[in-house]
């Protein structure tokens, strides 16, 4: 790794200011797990980093909002989410997803903000949070804004966040009436990077699907909504025939890309099969 300077501001606001006012452009670092890999590989050679580790403690907190939603500060570690009873009660799919998201030591250090801002399309939480209808609140010297998680990603490792814009917190809406699942398909260990990720959230009335969000990841440049497949579910009771049609619709509506974890045709076939499995998983949503 090449030498750099490091600032350690005491507030998120000050951090955002430091990102652009110091002459040399700077880059934020939170847990550093993703950045360290890039710096060690030499693909990222910063001159200045701004550490978020000394900012206000409320940015590491997890709170329940009136109505049952969640507010999670950007500096909360993935491990604190995994172990949070509040998260488990409000959205057990997040707790389940974290169990196979990398290993314990990485989760001990990695933060939610870093996870959401990194933009690697293989990351596990962006598709899940998109399906749950979650938002991020950001802060920059220009002001604050709220973005749907699904809007953050604009391309391969690209986000819509400005150079001096930081994620402050995540808001997960109440999940009353919704059931969700995330299926992470790996080709080696269960906690490996996904070959394909599929997140499903369904709002059910008795056995009938009233709303459906299906999201595919790890084989597209950004987490991608499957609207045609979701459309098949609306007003239907998801039996074997509907699930098969849903898989076919997903297969037809999106063109997946291959990578070291699997070729495009392989992933496309996985999609057809696993859309149905993920929907079945959502129907039995529990920890």
């Amino acid at each position, binding site marked *: 790794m090449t030498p750099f300077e490091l600032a350690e501001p005491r507030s998120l606001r000050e951090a955002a200011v430091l990102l652009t006012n110091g002459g040399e452009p700077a880059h934020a670092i939170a847990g550093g797990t993703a950045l360290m890999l890039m710096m060690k590989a030499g693909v990222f050679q910063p001159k200045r980093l701004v550490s978020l580790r000394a900012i206000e403690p409320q940015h590491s907190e997890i709170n329940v909002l009136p109505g049952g939603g969640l507010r999670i500060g950007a500096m909360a570690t993935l491990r604190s989410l995994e172990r949070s009873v509040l998260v488990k009660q409000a959205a057990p799919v997040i707790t389940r997803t974290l169990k196979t998201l990398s290993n314990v030591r990485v989760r001990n250090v990695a933060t939610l903000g870093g996870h959401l801002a990194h933009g690697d399309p293989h990351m596990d939480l962006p598709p899940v949070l998109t399906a749950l209808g979650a938002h991020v609140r950001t802060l920059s010297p220009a002001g604050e804004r709220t973005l749907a998680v699904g809007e953050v990603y604009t391309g391969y490792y690209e986000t819509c966040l400005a150079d001096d814009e930081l994620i402050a917190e995540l808001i997960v809406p109440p999940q009353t009436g919704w059931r969700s699942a995330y299926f992470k398909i790996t080709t080696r260990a*269960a906690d490996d990077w996904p070959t394909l990720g599929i997140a499903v959230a369904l709002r059910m009335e008795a056995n009938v699907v009233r709303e459906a969000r299906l999201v595919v990841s790890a084989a597209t440049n950004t987490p991608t909504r499957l609207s045609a497949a979701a459309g098949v579910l609306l007003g239907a009771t998801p039996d074997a025939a509907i699930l098969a049609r849903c898989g076919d619709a997903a297969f037809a509506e999106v063109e997946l890309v291959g990578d070291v974890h699997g070729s495009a045709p392989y992933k496309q076939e996985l999609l057809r099969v696993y859309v149905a499995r993920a929907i079945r998983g959502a129907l039995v949503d529990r920890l």
Partner: protein
Amino acid sequence: MNTTRTITFTLNGAPVTTTVGLHQHLVEVLHAQGLTGAREACAQGLCGCCTVLVNGIAVSGCLYLAVFADKADVKTIEYSPEGKLDAVQESFIECGAFQCGYCTPGFVLMVRQLLDEQLDPSDDDIKHYLAGNLCRCATYPEVVKAVKLAAKKRKVAA
């Protein structure tokens, strides 16, 4: 451009003050202190050979900036306040849960954390918790046995 910092931390119970490159990771700085129990193998967070406890939490030292350990309590496999092996280390020896031993410090530290969190982990719990520890000598079945034995030893001692 100031690219170094003098940091102070507790290393295995003793205070340390040292100047580090801001870009240096924790394993480099521990080696400079003469401690080689945490070693860099995969260098990318996957294998656990570089496991270090920072404020009681296991981290991959290879992905952890040394400057993040400023003012922290740092413990490595060398930490042994009573000067003898603990239940986990004894169990690894009794079960033959290593061959070359390169991965063992990381396994021992992670197993201690696991048993602090779960008194009686199942095979699945063990495999899941240790998924980020790789053993090139493939002693995994013996490791699982050693964890179970260590859990028993801890219970007897308690």
